[in-house]
């Protein structure tokens, strides 16, 4: 079962990058624009964005960074990665992380509920191991599974990128708020994947809680996947209300602070981490409390 999921992930990654390659080759020439033009466009674009009246501080920082990087490139003649390169694909891996979420939710939703439906829960809970330890071992399994899937995603993206696109001789530049520096694309990819992992983590924890409370894997998996897709839409519905700042899905994706795609304008990464931590503690408390106290009649 877990092997099938991992294999599925690899297949989807290869297929996805293969399709990208094919679309690139059928598209018009501007797919392979000169990096200088791209940098120029980046500056012009960011300038426009900075003119926006209701820009928040994190957003302003982000666009200033973009300008600084682009100017540095032009001044020092440092090309960026082309889109159709192994490096850029690896950096963009975080955009494929919803696949990991999907598979991790299937695991998280089933891992407790299936013990109840198989009746094995009574065999498990009559061992000299406290219930919270059993639940913790299951939770760690879910997280490890998600981490392994993320690593598989990164590696298979790199392999597929190598196979379909090859290596670009660009350089990755980052802005730390005061100066521009070089960095490795692997480091950047890992950073973004780790930030995106917050979303995998929260949604699987949610599925794990449902699995523990309702003892039904279909309910846990179904509801979690439904929320995963609709939860983010709800941010846009709620964006004019104060409550959106405390809503889980406003904060699940931490990459928003580094890729500029902010869900709402005035949030900071610190605030997101606090909100996520509170949700996490609530989910865990509910899971442990119900699992620890429940009378097993299965």
């Amino acid at each position, binding site marked *: 079962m877990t092997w099938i999921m991992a294999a599925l992930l690899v297949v989807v990654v290869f297929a996805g990058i293969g399709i990208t390659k094919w679309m690139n080759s059928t598209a018009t020439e501007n797919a392979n624009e000169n990096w200088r033009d791209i940098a120029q466009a980046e500056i012009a674009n960011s300038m426009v964005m900075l003119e926006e009246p209701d820009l928040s501080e994190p957003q302003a920082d982000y666009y200033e960074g973009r300008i600084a990087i682009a100017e540095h490139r032009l001044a020092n003649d440092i090309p960026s990665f082309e889109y159709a390169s192994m490096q850029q694909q690896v950096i963009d891996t975080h955009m494929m992380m919803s696949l990991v979420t999907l598979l991790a939710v299937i695991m998280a939703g089933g891992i407790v509920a299936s013990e109840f439906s*198989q*009746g*094995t829960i*009574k*065999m*498990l*809970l*009559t*061992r*000299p*191991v*406290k219930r919270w330890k059993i639940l913790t071992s299951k939770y760690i399994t879910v997280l490890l599974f998600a981490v392994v899937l993320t690593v598989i995603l990164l590696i298979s993206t790199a392999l597929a990128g190598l196979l379909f696109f090859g290596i670009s001789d660009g350089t990755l530049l980052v802005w730390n708020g005061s100066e521009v520096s070089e960095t490795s694309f692997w480091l950047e990819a890992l950073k973004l994947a780790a930030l995106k992992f917050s979303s995998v983590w929260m949604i699987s924890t949610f599925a794990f809680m449902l699995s523990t409370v309702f003892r039904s894997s279909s309910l846990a998996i179904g509801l979690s996947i439904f929320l995963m897709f609709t939860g983010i839409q709800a941010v846009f519905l709620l964006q004019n209300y104060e409550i959106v700042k405390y809503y889980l899905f406003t904060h699940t994706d931490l990459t928003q602070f580094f890729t500029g795609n902010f869900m709402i304008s005035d949030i900071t990464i610190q605030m997101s981490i606090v909100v996520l931590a509170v949700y996490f503690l609530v989910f865990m408390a509910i899971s442990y409390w119900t699992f620890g*106290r429940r*009378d*097993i*009649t299965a």
Partner: protein
Amino acid sequence: MAEQAIVQIKNLSKTIGKKKIIKNLSLDLHKGEITGFLGPNGAGKTTTIRMMVGLMRPTEGEVWIDGQSVQADFEGSIQKVGVIVENPEMYKYMSGYKNLLHFSRMHKGISKERIDEVVKQVGMQNRINEKVASYSLGMRQRLGLAQALLHDPKFLILDEPTNGLDPAGIREFRIYLQKIAKENGVAIFVSSHLLSEIELLCDRIAIIQNGELIDIKNVNDLQKSRYYIQAEPLELAGEVLTGIGFPAVLHDKGYLIDSGAEHIPGAINLLVGAGVRIFAVQPYRETLESQFLEMTGGGEIAQTHTK
């Protein structure tokens, strides 16, 4: 049974909703003793067993296993207990051996040799590497017994253990349980509907009805020597028997007397001497079933047989 009890159930009660399912149940189980747990459907056998192994939380009362409370020190007490609750459910997609390995990891210090030993004891060595999905109910019961015995428990709780075993399997199972009770001093607590099976297996029988323990009997007491004497005239026979110190109970067309075989010829001589005509003298044994029906009010047992 002067020995210190291995298991002490103290004033156990369970209320679910407004209904009191178990009412103030107390029971001691001793080393090397096999205790049967009998009761009609819905009497609270499984609930009691689930509370004894920590699957359910008692509303009141405590269960002590070898000096440790299941409620206060779960890990310390449960490591001495082997359990089969109803049908032993295993991971069907794994082999029997993998199942045992999985459970053994949750105990301290169970070697591979110990697993092999237990597999051999329950007679599963030929099919232990097959997936549990391919096992018959009887084989799952054997595997269930194996997982309960892995950690060499001092106390074994079995809920309906012979369910699905064939007659040879039941016999083997019984002999095996009696052996580990006698040789290893394991206390065994068995719930079952099979009255005749309980009678053969157990040293002692606890009977529960509507959540209350209504009787605890030693099987030896059930089998005490009794004779039935059919005689006429009844009144005279009664007088003679009471006269010589046998409390005679009227039964059918004669009397039941509690007495060893050695006193019977003398009693008959006296009866004949007094002019009582005797038609039959025979040892009398009441079956557990008839006693059980008598105690629990009958009726309900008809359902339990078909379960």
